[in-house]
């Protein structure tokens, strides 16, 4: 059952990722991107990373997609007119991506523990008394082991906000 769901959501994610690249209309690309990321969030949930699944939907389907759609509509971008593709660029791009996939498929069986099935987690209170849920675990580790990086990321977000305001001013003085 898990395997079937895995392949369904993977196919959804990869198919809509292809749609992002292949669509000529930027609005359709942005909406395909959201569906692709919702599929990815389902894979996160399948991997018992519930908090990250929720964050993925909130940040990407909520914030990033709205930002992309807002910019596309602000700039009033129409579907791209067909230009003469540079054939060298086209062939080069496809060849590099295909070489990457080829390398991936040859290397994928070599990982020593790669063919191991899901190792069991002990998530219920009978087997593992005093266990916290996923969000509590993430919060505990975030505020103990990763406290300094967390605060640095806060500063980064502040800098990004100030930078965006400065960049969006009508003229730079």
């Amino acid at each position, binding site marked *: 059952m898990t395997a079937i769901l*895995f392949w369904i959501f993977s196919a959804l994610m990869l198919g809509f990722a292809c749609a992002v690249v292949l669509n000529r209309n930027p609005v359709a690309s942005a909406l395909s991107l959201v569906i*692709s990321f919702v599929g990815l969030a389902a894979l996160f949930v399948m991997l018992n990373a519930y908090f990250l699944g929720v964050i*993925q939907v909130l940040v990407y389907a909520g914030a*990033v997609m709205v930002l992309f759609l807002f910019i596309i509509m602000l700039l009033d971008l129409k579907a791209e007119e067909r230009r003469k593709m540079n054939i060298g660029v086209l062939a080069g791009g496809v060849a*590099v991506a295909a070489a990457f996939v080829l390398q991936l498929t040859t290397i994928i069986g070599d990982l020593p523990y*790669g063919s191991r099935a899901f190792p069991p987690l002990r998530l219920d209170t009978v*087997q593992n008394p005093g266990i916290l849920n996923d969000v509590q675990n993430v919060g505990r580790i975030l505020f103990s*082991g990763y406290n300094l990086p967390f605060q640095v990321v806060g500063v980064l977000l502040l800098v990004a906000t100030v930078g965006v305001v400065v960049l*969006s001013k009508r003229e730079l003085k």
Partner: protein
Amino acid sequence: MELTLDDFLLVSGLLFAIGFAGVLLRRNIIIIFMSLEIMLNAANLSLVAFSRFQVQANGLPNYNGQMLVFFIITVAAAEVAVGLAVIVALYRARQTTHVEDISSLKF
């Protein structure tokens, strides 16, 4: 059929390849930006898979990988905001989002 770590890594690699091809093939700067997001999320998927497949002694997944994903998502959100502001400023100056029309830094 049992799911293995290899399946997750294969899907993650394919997603990365799609984003990579998008960056190389598309000429619209906004689509290139979306493909960059796809590549970041492919890395996130493999990190979460490694975290789940390395169960610790207390029976929980290895949360260090999930922490890295958390920081990647935060940085990606900041990056999207700044990048789109740059694109808007560029559009104001040049009235185009086509990368071949923006070539004043080209040697």
